[in-house]
């Protein structure tokens, strides 16, 4: 398999270095937004990046890594080789990516979005507090299950800070614990508190098939499961898929995260209790805005706590229609 990986790496390097910035030579500053994976969530951010480019007179582009942390590193390295004026990145594994992040910070203006790398030399972080957003998700679980019960958590990966914080926030929110974002409950330990039983956290590494099998196996293992929480955008739709096939829609309470269409439709139909949404469009838009100022030398855009907060929101049945209409408008899919 080593050979396969090597060949893949070579080919994709060729592919990336082959795509030149469209307006190179035009004298415009070049800003690149690097995501942590390919997902519809990031399309919203890419829309913000696209819209902000002309507005701030810069050349803006979004690149989505497909093969995890090594791929993201390679993309950043190639960007540094090519020469860009600013990078906004959503680090996959911040604790272990300081080398590449600091290399980038040394050669260009670097900020983080969506998931922070506080120990690196990034100038600032644009995003939300994932721990708080997790707590908001936990609140939705409590609303949906006032009597408590068994709950399973589904998430794509647990390595990155944003998912760690989001998951911990969710757990603390469900159990009504005090706020402490440094707490960590290992996924292999069942937590029984305050009438709830959090039976585990299952990861799928972005494999949708695996995400579905995780939900199926949970139904097998815990036939009496009361609630399922899907913390990555595609998790809630997979939960709905399995519940529909098992005729358990409505019986098992579903709480989501992000604004996948199936999740929003589920809220409208009542099969999903609610979801917590970020504002990825603003991650993209704000990244370009802030970077274009930083490139000009205007460092006053850096706040004292080095964080520009784009708060999350809870979406329930009563506000889902307005939210969805707004979302379609920003994405330009309302026509």
């Amino acid at each position, binding site marked *: 398999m080593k050979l396969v990986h090597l060949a893949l790496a070579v080919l994709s390097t060729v592919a990336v270095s082959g795509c030149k910035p469209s307006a190179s030579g035009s004298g415009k500053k070049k800003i690149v937004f690097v995501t942590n994976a390919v997902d*519809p969530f990031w399309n919203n951010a890419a829309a913000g990046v696209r819209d902000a480019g002309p507005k701030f007179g810069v050349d803006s582009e979004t690149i989505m890594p497909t093969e995890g942390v090594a791929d993201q590193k390679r993309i950043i390295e190639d960007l540094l080789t090519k020469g860009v004026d600013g990078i906004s990145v959503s680090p996959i594994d911040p604790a272990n990516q300081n080398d590449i992040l600091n290399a980038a910070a040394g050669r260009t203006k670097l900020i983080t979005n969506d998931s922070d790398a506080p120990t690196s030399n990034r100038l600032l972080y644009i995003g939300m507090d994932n721990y708080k957003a997790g707590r908001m998700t936990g609140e939705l679980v409590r609303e949906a299950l006032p009597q408590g019960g068994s709950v399973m958590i589904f998430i794509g990966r647990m390595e990155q800070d944003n998912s760690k914080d989001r998951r911990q926030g969710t757990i603390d929110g469900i159990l009504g614990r005090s706020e402490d974002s440094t707490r960590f409950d290992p996924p292999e330990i069942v937590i029984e508190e305050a009438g709830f039983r959090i039976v585990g956290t299952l990861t799928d590494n972005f494999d*949708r*098939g695996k995400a579905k*099998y995780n939900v199926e196996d949970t139904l*097998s293992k815990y036939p009496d499961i009361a609630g399922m929480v899907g913390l990555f955008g595609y998790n809630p739709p*997979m939960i709905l*898929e399995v519940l529909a096939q098992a005729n358990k829609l409505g019986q098992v309470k579903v709480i989501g995260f992000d604004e996948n269409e199936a999740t929003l439709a589920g809220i409208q139909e009542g099969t999903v209790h609610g979801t917590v949404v970020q504002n990825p469009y603003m991650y993209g838009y704000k990244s370009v805005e802030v970077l274009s100022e930083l490139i000009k030398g205007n460092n006053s855009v850096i706040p004292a706590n080095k964080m520009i907060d784009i708060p999350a929101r809870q979406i329930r049945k009563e506000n889902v229609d307005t939210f969805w209409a707004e979302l379609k408008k920003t994405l330009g899919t309302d026509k």
Partner: protein
Amino acid sequence: MQLKKTLGITLLLLAVCLLTASLSENFLSSYNLENLLRRTALFGIISIGVAFVIVTGGIDLSVGSVICLAGCGLPWLLTTQGWSLPSALMAVALVSAGIGLLHGLLITKLGIQPFVVTLCGLMMYRGIARGFTGDQTVGFGDGFKGLRSLATGRIELPFIDGFALPAPCVFLLVIALLAAFFLNRTIYGRYLLALGRSEEAARYSGINTGRMTVLAYVLCSCLAGFGGVLFVLDVNIAQPSDCGNFYELYAISAAVLGGCSLRGGVGTIYGVLIGAALMQTLRNMIVLTTRHQHMEFAIIGAVLLAGVVADELIKRRHLRRKAVRSLREESTPA
């Protein structure tokens, strides 16, 4: 000899099932068994395809990417391009068969190594799928319920309450029977095995080895394409960047576990099915009986390695005994 080759793996599957059943009362619930059978069927179908290539002594690394191309292509054609169902299915079938034909011809006419040809395929087909979908998730949404029942449907069985046969099992059964019949009972199947054992010998005995090799790759890609269609019908959405990623390894492992030698010439369809079932049962076991999901691949790898090592030791002991016996017979004065 063939039975002996698959006996070890069958016993290993039984042992894993017994162990899981004793650790989790829910393992034998009809809901879990149905899920397990459906997954085994999906992975079994692509594994049979790979087995055809492996018995000829070749390898197909592009299976996962063909799954991706077919799995993303079908919903893309149907929902965003508005093709009719028959033409979309036809297109997916033709493309899958065409890929196999291309592989086969490059390998036989130009003499390029299968590893290289299909490695390039692995990169190309996923890349193409990512290209035409614009790297976007494609899916059926709420539509195509009838079509989706090909993968999600359940067939009620007489006399068994609460348990229904997942629809993909029917496909697997038909494909497996046809494949086994083809491999063991037709002259072409024997040609395939002969070609895997020694291509030169097969060619000198008048077998058109080129044509047989092409056939193996076409069958493999067709089954991968069909598998891809079933996978996306089952999951409802496909993300081109990860749909079917690494599934070629599941397929190759299942085939090899089932007794297919990577050197070619040896393999049974029954063994491949057991191999596919073992892979899925192990994954299911880890979720049902442990909380250490992150250890999944470590556990699967260890069990498989143990199985292969045990198999090898049994074979060696068997050979040694045979040798001792023949020595004794020689030394006994007549």
